[in-house]
């Protein structure tokens, strides 16, 4: 009988062997793959006698959301609280960015640029476009700033709080290199801190500068990777953010060290209640909106985020899957790359058979942005409808009426993190009975 070690299992052994052979850490795309307490560990309490449910299709359950009305003269009005997370042109092909814009616009939500600037494909197809302001400032351009519908100052990402962007040479093609002012083919290492400010006192001044440049028209988001969430959210709000984007450790990345993805940051479920508490203590909950991302996959995740106090969610990995990432019909091609449909995470390598995480023109041509956009729109509609199903069952005429008291937890870990009772009890771990 062969017995595998729980400590030195085959994956661990392969990691050690790979490190010994190459002398460099493993770099991959995607988010944390380990199991962590997640929204699956929560359940809704549907209405019956003590609460009254709403009829599906007949009785209203609204889903619209306003983001950024604290200071901006033109806040975003979205039809659904499912937004598209920041992903760069460079990490993704131009056609993939176009497809994201098409899909998001069709359902009245926003999409977001990434570490590499704004492309015409994306701006042209996006009704609401959030323009990221990152430490690297690749392609950062005041004209694009003025063309954007909102500005997102990125401090960090859930996959790698404390780390900068990375894009390997295979994807630094002529166009990507031109947009980022880099030599073609370099392994790009972005800065982890902004070049001209550090800390909340300086961020406050930076936010004012961006408002001055854009004449106080556009909402200013601040995106943080989930780690010391309670403090970071408080400081972002104090520094003047209109919207806080909170990205948990399951959130994806185009390329980062595997050790960073799996071992730094905290789960989305653990971070969200900390963020809400921080905003409530500042008297800013629902005034500074909270957008949550990192492993959001369906309408149940959406409804649970809303119930725990989020104003909207952002999807990244799920959106790429909706476009066609990891599609079963590509299994044979994934296997040629040493992976398989359902497992592919070598987004850094630029050889994506689905034509999404690539800059290879032949591969990129495989993605039809119209079809991809339609698929994304379908997916967001389904997510939204699923959340409405849950909200109506809980007697809510708006997704925003969902609250923590509508939830119970299946595990002690989830109960402690979400700060809701273990199902069938009134026990919230860590809180007095």
């Amino acid at each position, binding site marked *: 009988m062969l017995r595998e070690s729980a400590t030195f299992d085959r994956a661990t052994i392969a990691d050690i062997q790979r490190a010994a052979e190459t002398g460099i850490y493993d770099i991959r795309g995607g988010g944390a793959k380990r199991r962590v307490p997640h929204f699956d560990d929560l359940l809704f309490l549907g209405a019956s006698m003590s609460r009254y449910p709403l009829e599906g299709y007949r009785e209203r359950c609204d889903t619209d959301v306003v983001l950024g009305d604290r200071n901006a003269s033109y806040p975003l009005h979205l039809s659904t609280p499912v937004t598209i997370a920041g992903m760069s042109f460079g990490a993704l092909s131009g056609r993939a960015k176009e497809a994201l814009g098409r899909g998001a616009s069709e359902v009245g939500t926003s999409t977001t640029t990434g570490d590499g600037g704004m492309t015409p494909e994306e701006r042209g197809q996006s009704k609401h476009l959030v323009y990221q302001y990152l430490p690297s400032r690749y392609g950062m351009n005041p004209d694009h700033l003025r063309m954007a519908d909102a500005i997102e100052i990125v401090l960090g990402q859930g996959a790698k709080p404390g780390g900068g962007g990375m894009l390997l*040479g295979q994807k630094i093609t002529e166009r990507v290199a031109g947009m980022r002012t880099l030599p073609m083919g370099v392994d790009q290492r972005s800065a982890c801190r902004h070049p001209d400010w550090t800390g909340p006192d300086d961020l406050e001044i930076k936010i004012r500068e961006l408002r001055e440049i854009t004449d106080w028209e556009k909402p200013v988001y601040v995106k943080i990777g989930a780690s010391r969430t309670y403090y970071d959210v408080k400081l972002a709000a104090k520094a003047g953010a209109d919207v806080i984007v909170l990205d948990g450790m399951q959130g994806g990345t185009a390329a980062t060290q595997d050790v960073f993805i799996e071992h730094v940051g905290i789960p989305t479920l653990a971070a969200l209640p900390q963020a809400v508490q921080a905003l409530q203590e500042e008297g800013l909950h629902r005034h500074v909106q909270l957008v949550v991302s990192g492993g959001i996959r369906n309408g149940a995740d959406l409804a649970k985020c809303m119930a725990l106090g989020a104003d909207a969610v952002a999807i990244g990995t799920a959106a790429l899957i909706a476009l066609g990432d990891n599609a079963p019909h590509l299994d044979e091609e994934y296997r040629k790359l040493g992976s398989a449909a359902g497992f592919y995470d070598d987004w850094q390598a630029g050889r994506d058979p689905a034509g999404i995480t690539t800059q290879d023109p032949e591969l990129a041509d495989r993605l039809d942005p119209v079809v991809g956009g339609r698929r994304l729109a379908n997916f967001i509609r389904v997510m939204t409808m699923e959340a409405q199903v849950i909200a109506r069952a809980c007697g809510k005429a708006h997704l925003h009426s969902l609250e923590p008291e509508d939830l119970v937890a299946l595990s002690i870990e989830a109960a402690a993190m979400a700060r809701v009772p273990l199902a069938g009890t009134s026990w919230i771990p860590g809180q007095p009975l």
Partner: protein
Amino acid sequence: MAALSTPLDVHEPNSTTEAVVDLSVSDVRQLNAALHAPDVAEKVPSWRVTHPDGRHSIAVGLDAEVSVEIDGHVGYYCAGMNKSATVTVHGNAGVGVAENMMSGTVRVRGNASQSAGATAHGGLLVVEGSAAARCGISMKGVDIVVGGDVGHMSAFMGQAGRLVVCGDAGDALGDSLYEARIYVQGSVKSLGADCIEKEMRAEHLAELAELLAAAGMSADPAGFRRYGSARQLYNFHVDNASAY
């Protein structure tokens, strides 16, 4: 806060040439809103700002061929993201002067604080005094000419453009440099990772002479040394692991 509640109090001593905005009376929001007016270059091409008193974000986001003279010290991000305009600070500038500038000219008559010209894509930044740490960090095409010294980590991750230092450079000059070129007349305390001294050829002397002339500096190009990227860190390699 966003709305312009009161009209800008603009004094026009000679209305055909120059508008004067006194920041002890008007606020920065009013000044910037006026400078952002679509027809500003045609109607009022010359501006003078008095009593800046270290306020932040003065004359940011300009996108017109106007000239702005600021009489005194400015705070963070003066002339940030400048396009086309000519901004002159008759005093010292705080953090991030001319950050992410695209074009035009920004001149600081005194000293500049850290991160001067950070990530700037184009145009000319002149600091007649000294610039502090991280001058030209992540520069993406701007030309920066400093009359005095620059602090540590200047031109860190510099991608493109030219940095000219007439005085001395601090520690770790040009660390992780891409394709920006650096000229220093004085001493260099230390070079950063992947930054090396390079041969000063005729074309470099010519471009340096041009930059010094554009900045109004009288230094002799022959007294400068050139530094650039060794390009050893462009792709991950196990032998460079200690530099990552």
